[in-house]
C-alpha cells in the first residue's frame, strides 16, 4: 500500500512538471534549449550530491546505499550526455539566439550548427532523469 501511494505521488510529481512545461508553451513562455539544459544540469547536480552524501556517510543504511548505487548507475549514463550539452543554435543563422520549445528540441531533425544533442540523446537523457525521479529520494 505504501509503495502504491509512493508510485502515485511520484507520477503526480512528473505530471506536475509536464503541466508546468505545457503551461509555459500555452502562455508563450517557451522553455529555451538553454533553460532545458539548466534544468537537466541542476537535476543531475542535486542527485549526484545526494548519492555522494549517502555513500560517504557511515550512518547510511543498507537500503539507502542500495538505492544510491542504483542512482549512481543512472548518473554514470547521464553524465556524458549532460556534460556535452550545449544549446542548439538557429541552423539558419548561428548568431541568432533562437528560443526552442521542448517540442522543437525533441523533434528537430534538420542540420544544427554548433553543439547540440541529437533527438535520440535528448530522449535517452529524459528517460534517465525520469528513472532517477522514479527511484525517489535518499
Amino acid at each position, binding site marked *: 500500500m*505504501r509503495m502504491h*501511494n*509512493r508510485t502515485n*505521488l*511520484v507520477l*503526480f*510529481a*512528473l505530471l*506536475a*512538471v509536464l503541466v*508546468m512545461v505545457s503551461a509555459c508553451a500555452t502562455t508563450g513562455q517557451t*522553455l*529555451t534549449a*538553454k*533553460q532545458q*539544459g*539548466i*534544468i537537466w*544540469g*541542476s*537535476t*543531475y*547536480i*542535486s542527485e*549526484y*550530491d545526494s*548519492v*555522494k552524501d549517502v*555513500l*560517504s556517510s557511515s550512518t547510511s543504511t543498507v537500503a539507502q*546505499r542500495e538505492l544510491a*548505487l542504483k542512482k*549512481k548507475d543512472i*548518473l*554514470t549514463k547521464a*553524465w556524458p550526455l*549532460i*556534460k556535452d*550539452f*550545449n*544549446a542548439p543554435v538557429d541552423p539558419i543563422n548561428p548568431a541568432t*539566439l533562437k528560443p526552442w520549445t521542448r517540442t522543437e528540441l525533441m523533434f528537430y531533425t534538420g542540420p544544427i550548427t554548433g553543439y547540440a544533442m541529437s533527438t535520440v540523446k535528448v530522449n535517452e537523457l529524459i528517460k534517465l532523469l525520469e528513472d532517477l*525521479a522514479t527511484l*525517489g*529520494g535518499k
Partner: protein
Amino acid sequence: MGDAAIIVVRLIVEGWAAYARTQGKTEAEINTILSQVINDVISRDPADLPDK
C-alpha cells in the same frame, strides 16, 4: 509528512527552482548560468563516487 510526500515536494521544488533561475534573465545571464551549471556537472564525475 511521509518519505514519498517529501520526495514529491522535493522534485517539484527543485524543478521550479531550476526553472525560476532563468526567468527574467537576459540572454547573457542565461549563458552564464548554463555555463556554470555545465561546469558543475563536468566536475561531478560519477566515477569519483564510492563503489559501495
